């Protein structure tokens, strides 16, 4: 079977190029997640304040980020901001900004949820033991919040990895784009290349996300 599409993978540096493409996605996801974590924690704490103004602000931010498709946000950051303010944001930077904004919103909501799920009697019994608000936060609230958050954060990371494939639309060469290029270049010699290339991409995504999901499941079980 000379024209079996699988051979495309071994042509030149095709497989390496796919891996590099995946690297782009993973790099952006990782940076965005690392930035989203601390920002999201702050946002989540901000969201639990009983102040109506802070509530309104965080609500609007969250809704805005959620309602807007990430694609639109990407275009605004990459094309819009450049037009409006004359800043020249590279595709990398635009992508990191947009996915950090998104990750912060999602993380903030997770943190808020974890914080308000701590029952009031936990605060009461800590107070009744003479603990200050700060001691209660450090020894009672944070550890319980972390347990709930770690699996959720890991899931957010896999969602981030999958969503960052959108960067192709602002001209970045990530794994899907590389795949498309390879398919196009070999259209005539290997008509079935598309199947194989996308299959391999599927596998690469799976290999990137699966261990992360497994880790989340394991932690979830351990901490119930």
């Amino acid at each position, binding site marked *: 079977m000379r024209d079996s599409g699988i051979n495309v993978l071994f042509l030149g540096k095709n497989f390496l190029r796919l891996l590099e493409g995946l690297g782009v996605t993973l790099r952006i996801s990782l940076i965005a997640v690392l930035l989203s974590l601390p920002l999201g924690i702050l946002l989540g704490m901000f969201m639990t304040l009983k102040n109506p103004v802070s509530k309104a602000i965080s609500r609007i931010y969250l809704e805005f980020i959620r309602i807007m498709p990430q694609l639109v946000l990407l275009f605004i950051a990459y094309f819009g901001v450049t037009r409006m303010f004359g800043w020249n944001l590279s595709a990398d930077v635009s992508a990191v900004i947009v996915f950090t904004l998104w990750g912060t919103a999602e993380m903030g909501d997770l943190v808020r949820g974890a914080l308000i799920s701590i029952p009031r*009697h936990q605060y009461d*019994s800590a107070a*009744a*033991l*003479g*603990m200050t608000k700060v*001691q209660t936060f450090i*020894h009672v609230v944070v*550890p*319980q919040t972390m347990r709930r958050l770690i699996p959720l954060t890991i899931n957010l990371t896999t969602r981030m990895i999958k969503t960052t494939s959108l960067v192709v639309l602002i001209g970045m060469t990530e794994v899907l784009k590389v795949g498309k290029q390879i398919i196009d270049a070999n259209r005539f010699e290997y008509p079935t290349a598309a199947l194989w290339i996308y299959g391999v991409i599927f596998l690469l995504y799976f290999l990137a996300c699966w261990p992360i999901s497994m880790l989340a499941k394991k932690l979830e079980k351990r901490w119930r």
Partner: protein
Amino acid sequence: MEERIQLKVKGLVKRFGSETVLDGIDLDVHKGEVVVVLGPSGCGKSTLLRCMNGLESLSEGNIFLDGEEVSSSGKKITMLRQKIGMVFQSYDLFPHKNIMDNITLAPVKVQKRPKKDVESQAEKLLKRVGLWEKRKSYPRELSGGQKQRVAIIRALCMNPEVMLFDEVTAALDPEMVREVLDVMLELADGGMTMVIVTHEMQFARAIADRVIFLDGGNIVEDLPPEEFFTAPKTQRAKDFLQTFAYEKRRTDTN
């Protein structure tokens, strides 16, 4: 019994919004005395206990521990709370810490006592209630009755001068009530000053030096237990006690 007033409530008024829950409570609890607070649901028993250790702010009035005022804010309150232990109805152990760490957390972090000392104190108490084997278990691995006994020990390891109990057996299966009440009886025998809210009438009668009956935001009876249970002065207390009595009301339809 010594005459020294350990806990003094003076003119306590507590409002939630426009609702007045406690309407001028005066109560002196002497050292070593066991006061049981009874009253219909929603009459403010929990609120009274929560005010006593500053979990709720007072609308009016004052509370004194050993002559020192308990105010609901500032550094003083955390100092005073260390002297007033409280155990709640809900199982309130910290789920992320094992039994021993639950007990040692506050004495070590709040009172800055050496962990070893607290652990040996905890060991004695855990052994006494038969839970020493559970010291490395997590709260979710314990029964309700075991959790409440640990909660009592956790409060005791702060070496409080007064213990407040708010319906600590109300959420327990009947067969576990006894083991918790026994611990409280032992504490009372040891001379601990206690204020207890309970729905266990037999227990109230057995443990109380004094019964306080709360209704309509006021103390309407303040009597020794025998007198309260056999000859309450007010109709409201009589009605209340009546709700715990079972009569043969079934009629024969044949």
